[in-house]
């Protein structure tokens, strides 16, 4: 989705910028050298004119087997996100995050109204019926973003050549995004590569299984 969006953005840029489109490859590890998936990579142009004319697209955050899919979804500010429910049950999606507070009523299928994310920041999603469900929407202020896959790698393509401040975010990162800031100059003739090492704190989530000593779900 991010690639499609970047493509859309690229089409909207001036022809000269297209002729000079650049690419950036990223590798993210933790301090133990383990590859990190679901890290959001954001490239903010130093010249803000490079990010003009981008139209926010429509995106989707699904619910499959009582989990949000994907676990982390980066979107561009102003995007509209649908919350289809692929489970054969009802969910009740909510967020208390300052970047977007909302609550969808109990619904099944594709009946939930789409939500517009008009403020940059992290939005933590939950389901009021299934407390272990958690998902993240990262609302990016720049149209140039992606997230790492299982191998800790990601590529941002179709970026106008120029200077960028590149930074990372991850749900379990134990330091601020700003500490990952890196100034990168992209040129059209050769892709840039960069590697980050980030600190991850232990992740504690509400357990799905009720133990022998716990109040049973539901």
């Amino acid at each position: 989705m991010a690639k499609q969006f970047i493509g859309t953005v690229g089409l909207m840029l001036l022809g000269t910028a297209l002729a000079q489109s650049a690419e950036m490859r990223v590798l993210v590890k933790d301090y133990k050298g383990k590859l990190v998936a679901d890290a959001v990579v954001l490239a903010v142009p130093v010249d803000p004119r490079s990010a003009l004319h981008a139209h926010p697209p429509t995106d989707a955050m699904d619910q499959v087997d009582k989990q949000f899919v994907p676990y982390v979804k980066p979107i561009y500010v102003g995007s509209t996100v649908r919350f289809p429910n692929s489970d054969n049950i009802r969910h009740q999606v909510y967020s208390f995050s300052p970047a977007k507070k909302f609550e969808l009523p109990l619904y099944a299928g594709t009946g939930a109204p789409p939500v517009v994310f008009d403020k940059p920041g992290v939005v933590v999603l939950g389901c009021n019926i299934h407390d272990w469900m958690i998902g993240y929407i990262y609302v990016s202020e720049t149209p140039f973003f992606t997230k790492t896959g299982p191998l800790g790698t990601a590529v941002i393509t179709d970026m106008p050549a120029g200077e960028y401040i590149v930074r990372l975010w991850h749900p379990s990162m134990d330091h601020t995004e700003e500490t990952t800031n890196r100034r990168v100059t992209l040129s059209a003739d050769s892709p840039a590569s960069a590697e980050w090492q980030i600190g991850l704190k232990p992740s504690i989530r509400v357990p799905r299984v009720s133990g022998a000593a716990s109040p049973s779900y539901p």
Partner: protein
Amino acid sequence: MNCKFARTLLPAFLIFCAVSHTARSDWTVATATALSHDDNVGNALSYTNKVSDYSASATVSMLQLIPFGEGYSLAAGGDLSGQVYDHLSGLRNASIDGLLSLKKKWGVGAFATWTRAGISVGRTDYQQGYRDATIYRASLELGKRLDERWNLWAKYAFERRAATSSGDEIYGLSSDAFSQKGRSFAVNARYSLSQRFSISLGALLRHGDVVSTTPPAGYIFADSKAVAPDPAFGPDAYAYRLDGTTYSGRLVAEYSLTTHSLIGCGFQRSETHARGGNNYSDSLPQLTWNYQF
């Protein structure tokens, strides 16, 4: 398990499974297995009369969740369980329970306070049928998850076991020794040390009927409400029903193998103070495995 029990309960369970499958709704299917060692299965008074044994149990639970807005949800379903003892074969039993509960979440989110009222009706059949009983339970629960690590809850429950009495008086006392009533209050706390590892602490106070099995003893007769032969513990064993209060504590450590399964190791210690100064103690170490589909 006797044939009558199997003939009655197995078709009921299969129908239950079929209905759950065709309903295609929010069913929670879970299994729980446990290996336990009880150092005083019969609540004997003296050390010499204590009978210890190992047991294995398995439970399959199916609950349908029906949320209907404003934080209310109804859960309906049932359990099918069985328990076998290593030596006390007469105590082998199988149970079926039907459950209905109404839960109210006082807010939105995983950390909202919740309350739940529930009722259940069950039937337990033993290898030696004189202990067979129909069990009625009602409960009120209150819980709150403080954060991702701490989860607290409390439960008040009433239980009535209706067993079949032989009708003949023994030593001038009712023979309905296996019918019991009791009320209990339990508080529990669970703390997640990591994503996979958690510790739970629980305390329980129960007041009501207590059944103790020992050789015939006049000083227990005087305080008993009922007495009946209990051949599961031997030819000279008698079960006595008395009023008593039980104080119980439990510590459980659990490790999450996957997002769907948990293994656990627990220890429960109970002290019962019954009428007439008849006091019983019981220790129950346990290994558990829970799987939730």
